[in-house]
């Protein structure tokens, strides 16, 4: 007995998208599709943000954070302790002079820190800039 006479179709190796076929999509790209396509997300982010970001706003800190609600005594206390800390003062001077060394140029044990050692040990340093 002979087998079926229907000719075999070529194996489908990939799904053809509208862009592969050079045609315009018949419907707008779905939201899910656009949010899962990283390349498209990058392009969309840059394109949409270009006109949607406001720079150098003078009021956002005062309105959103309200820094004046922190007591002067507290601020003075922190400033006093900073001024007595040579490491921090050296670090601030280095920042002002743009002389902060890169992390990779530092002595490794000084900058290697597990973030969860913050409240359990004193092995970390505060004077390392991570750029």
């Amino acid at each position: 007995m002979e087998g079926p006479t229907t000719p075999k179709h070529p194996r489908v190796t990939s799904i053809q998208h509208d862009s592969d076929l050079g045609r315009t999509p018949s419907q707008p790209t779905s939201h899910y599709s656009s949010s899962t396509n990283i390349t498209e997300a990058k392009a969309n982010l840059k394109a949409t943000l270009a006109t949607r970001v406001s720079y150098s706003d003078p009021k956002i800190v005062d309105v959103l954070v309200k820094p004046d609600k922190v007591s002067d005594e507290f601020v003075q206390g922190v400033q006093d302790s900073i001024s007595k800390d040579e490491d921090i003062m050296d670090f601030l001077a280095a920042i002002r002079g743009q002389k902060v060394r890169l992390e990779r140029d530092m002595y490794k044990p000084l900058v290697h820190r597990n973030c969860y050692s913050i409240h359990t040990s004193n092995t970390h340093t505060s004077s390392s800039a991570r750029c």
Partner: protein
Amino acid sequence: MNKIIQHSEDDSEGDENDKTGEHSPSKPAADTNFARRIKRMWLDVHDLIPRTDPGLFIPGMPTNYEIEEDVVMGSKRPHPGGDEDDTGPSGPSKARRSSKKQQFARDGKNQGKTDALEKRRPDLVMVDHYTQEHRQDRCMWRHFAVLMEVKRDRSDGPNPADGTTLTRLTAQLADMARLHLAARPFMRYSVHLSICGDRFNLAIFDRAGGVVSKDYDISNDLETFIRIICRLGRQLDAYDLGLDRTVVPIHALGGWKQFPEFRVTVGASTYITQGLPLWQSSSLVGRGTFVWVVVLEVDAEESGKGRAGSFILKNAWRACGRLAESTVYKMLYSATEATSHLTDLGGVAQFVEGGDILDPQEPNEVIKASSHRKGFGPATNENDDPVLHRVVLASHGRKLYEFVTFSQFMRAAKNMNSGTPSRIPQHSLLTHSRTPGTS
């Protein structure tokens, strides 16, 4: 910085607030609002890959956690979402990627700098800290309250020289903001600090874009810097840092064991979210949709009367110029067959209730993107001001693999097809507004 970190840890005010969180994470407290608890700490996460909860996949978020053990000093680790992924799938990948270009991304020179959008993790973060649970040696995006990015040179700051061009750092902050907003539910905006050389800035990103502060000098404005850090870590609650004021987290935001559930008000009813969201948008500007399974919260008298079924909650920012989704549903179900040309509503989700959300701080006003921008930022464009909108549906979608028979599947396909634009052009919104859980 070190002093401030430790001070936050010893914060007596935080300990006082912590007393409200005595409840077990598995037993949500009816009267506890965990958004009001202020117990935070700074973490250095620049050489870690922040995680999401198991089962929660956010497109574009690095997921290759295995390489965390092999830290390369002085460089952020390349992640799967980098340039090599541009032509490939965006799903999780176990394959380790390495790129010469990325290895020199942090050496302070322009040559070899990577695309800013590839560094999808902050340098430092202020996280919600839940003292009732043992802290684990990893960090999670949903714990982040404030994100900080540090650059060596002041020229890398977020404010452009010409005042208009999108800077590399601003794009990088925005990219992290979209992941932050996707991983931490019900956020209206994401708060960021940047320190570039001796300059620091504060920025927020929301569904309408972003606002970056003027440049502050860390020497001349050290007092302001101290005040900002103190406010962010000790005094501002989760609502002040972007959480939607109309929801109440009934689990700790900094908890590890339990993805927080939220009490959400829609109209006169209150619903409780269940577990992880079914779906969440990962884009920054736009609708920012979250879809949840929720249950109706009933009081003691109502319980046992069969009202505690589960529903689908869709939380999204709708374009103010478009018809609200809840209005479309109401029109559909109120129209007669003769006027709607709909012969069968079997494929349309069953609408329960919904609408724009009223601002608790401004009675009779709905929550818009501009609501939290009052007093700063550019003048609001009334035609481009997203409105917070919620819809509750009684219809649950089914996953394809849950269909048992082919006839079941074809009936579902027939129902879906009944809402196509070709048959009901005047209601074409239906097709494009269909979401998971409504098919």
